[in-house]
């Protein structure tokens, strides 16, 4: 099938890319890996005059782990690079798991993590774990001044983010804090197939234990609202309490107050509510089992 006509633009610096994106506005779509963008163009969901490729910008494919600080992922770092990184597997195993849950090897060899969040699909696999890990998003704008904000502020709706289009704002990197002693995290995806399937729901948990007490925790859910959401009702029940299976059961039940799932071809809203309950328990327990020593 022939793609609709567009002009391909290869960016050479991030500043040039921001300027071009700001100038062209809706006439331009920005592409990193392109595994979502080319699909949207092919399906005529978007009909851009320009496809702006960021892959031609040097130095934006970093993947650096600094012990005690955390992981920096560039805008052009491929999902496959992250999932295969021995450091990511060792230091942030739940991030490696969530990245591996995206699509297939072929897609992960081309697609990027930053592209996965910028596509802002409600059921995407990487946002829940990034949210619970307390990741930070860094951007650049046409003014030459970027922003840095918690990833929780990023998602604004289906395919909508807080990036300022008029400023040509683009994500340059994502930073994930390292796990400290007594902290653990996990992501569990519920899908019919093991690969190449969108999540019915996906739940990520992060926990900080102080002996038997839950000193702090975060739970985030994908596929159960127009954006990935924090399950704050569940978190409130858990924080400051001594862990027990009964307490987790109560907290998992409370997630229904935080989500607004729809019924669609993959599952009914009722089923999603019940599965968020189940997968909250699984991911929280796995986070507890994988506390950093």
């Amino acid at each position, binding site marked *: 099938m022939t793609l609709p006509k567009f*002009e391909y633009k290869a960016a050479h610096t991030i500043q040039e890319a921001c300027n071009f994106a700001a100038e062209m506005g809706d006439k331009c779509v920005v592409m990193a890996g392109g*595994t979502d963008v*080319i*699909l949207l163009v092919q399906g005529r969901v978007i009909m851009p005059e320009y496809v702006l490729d960021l892959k031609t910008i040097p130095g934006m494919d970093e993947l650096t782990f600094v012990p005690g600080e955390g992981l920096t992922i560039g805008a052009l770092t491929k999902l496959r690079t992250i999932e295969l990184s021995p450091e990511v597997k060792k230091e942030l195993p739940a991030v490696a798991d969530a990245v591996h849950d995206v699509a297939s*090897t072929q897609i992960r060899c*081309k697609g990027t993590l930053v592209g996965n969040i910028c596509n802002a699909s409600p059921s995407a696999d990487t946002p829940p774990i990034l949210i619970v890990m307390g990741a930070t998003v860094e951007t650049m704008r046409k003014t030459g001044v970027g922003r840095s904000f918690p990833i929780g502020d990023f998602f604004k709706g289906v395919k909508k983010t807080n990036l300022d289009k008029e400023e040509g704002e683009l994500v340059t990197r994502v930073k994930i804090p390292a796990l400290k002693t007594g902290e653990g995290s996990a992501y569990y995806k519920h899908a019919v197939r093991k690969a190449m399937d969108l999540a019915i729901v996906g739940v990520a948990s992060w926990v900080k234990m102080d002996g038997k007490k839950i000193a702090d925790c975060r739970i985030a859910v994908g596929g159960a609202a127009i954006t990935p959401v924090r399950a704050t009702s569940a978190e409130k029940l858990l924080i400051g309490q001594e862990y027990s299976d009964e307490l987790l059961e109560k907290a998992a039940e409370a997630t229904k107050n935080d989500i607004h799932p729809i019924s669609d071809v993959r599952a009914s809203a009722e089923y999603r509510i019940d599965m968020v309950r189940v997968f909250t328990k699984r991911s929280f327990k796995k986070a507890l089992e994988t506390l950093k020593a």
Partner: protein
Amino acid sequence: MKRVIHFNLNGDPMECFVADNKTMLDFLRTDLHLTGTKRGCEEGECGACTIMLDHQPVCSCLLLAVEADGHDITTIEGIMQNGKLHPVQREFIDKWALQCGFCTPGMIMSAVALLNTNPHPTEHEIRDAIAGNLCRCTGYTKIVEAIGAAAEVLRKEA
């Protein structure tokens, strides 16, 4: 709009004039007449169009031809070694790992990409590597066996 791109195709340097909106899949099949790469879903779901971009398996339906500028492209036509079938191709034949054959080139490209970086894959790793390649005829058992057997052949050759 059209532009000139330079890339390596199966080891040979190429200079081509391509339209911006042409996918690598279309370019290979209609311009270069390399029809070993198959047109399947054109949505990155089925893996029939799998090729290698800088030695990594990718869906050529989700790759613009212009994106190949300055990169290495390998297709199923480029994996024979010294005029002989690649061990993965040989084992697919010997182990009856195909029926209609439509998924086979993509399946083989995923398998070769795996074995290039992982000479000792477990069955789980083989299945994971071809999870993005759909076969509607044989089921996957024979395919997994063929890839495992090819890994063994390659280890002996090394």
